């Protein structure tokens, strides 16, 4: 993410607080008058807010960009054409043909059944797996929500 977005599409939620800001280095810091702690926090908060806002797309934007009538009609026509194309290709899809599993169906079906011991073993394995899955749980170690206290 950065500043290379199309400004027509990406209107920032919060205008940049200090567009020409340069990172403070130690000399600038010591030479400037000591800013009050309150303003520092404010600036920090604002920059955090701004960085977050850069990465958020507000879908409930109050003032949605208006579209001119002809633009709207064009888009509507574009979408319905595309939809018509897609629905054509979708309806033509036939169910996949079944692969042939054998050329000797009668022989295959007449062969010995699955041994009962095999069935028992698979049932046991399935029961173990079910038991293991049912024991998956969240092990909460800390509170999820904490209060920050500024002394």
């Amino acid at each position: 993410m950065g500043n290379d977005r199309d400004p027509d599409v990406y209107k920032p939620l919060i205008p940049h607080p200090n567009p020409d800001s340069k990172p403070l280095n130690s000399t600038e810091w010591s030479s400037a008058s000591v800013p009050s702690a309150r303003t520092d926090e404010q600036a920090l908060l604002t920059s955090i807010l701004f960085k977050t806002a850069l990465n958020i797309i507000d879908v409930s934007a109050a003032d949605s960009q208006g579209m001119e009538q002809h633009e709207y009609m064009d888009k509507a026509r574009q979408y319905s054409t595309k939809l018509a194309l897609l629905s054509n290709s979708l309806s033509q899809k036939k169910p996949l043909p079944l692969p042939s599993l054998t050329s000797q169906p009668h022989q295959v079906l007449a062969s010995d059944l699955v041994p009962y011991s095999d069935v028992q073993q698979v049932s046991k394995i399935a029961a173990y797996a079910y038991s293991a899955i049912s024991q998956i749980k969240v092990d909460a170690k800390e509170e999820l929500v904490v209060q920050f206290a500024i002394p």
Partner: protein
Amino acid sequence: MGLLIGNNKGNMTTSALTQGLERIPDQLGYLVISEDGVLASAGELENDEHTAGVIMQMVRTACRFRQQGAAEPPFKRMSVMLEDYVYTVTVSGQKVFVVKRQNNKREPVMV
């Protein structure tokens, strides 16, 4: 006795399809199903279109399984095992064959 429902498409006659199934010793009934519907049915599965539908869905799902990188489904026969009986199912020449057989729970005798 068998009952023919629907067209018989394909090279085999219906009796050729079902003769082999009739002869399976402990069979309780059978179905032969194509894409269009039930071709033949007999015994406890006679006219059982509901079972045919369910088994067709199971077969379609199972035929999509693949072992790593393999082109073919990894099985020849699907067995649906219930308490007293088993449905054995396979696919050959675009047709699904289902035979309902007695479920013998006896342990095999080792000699």
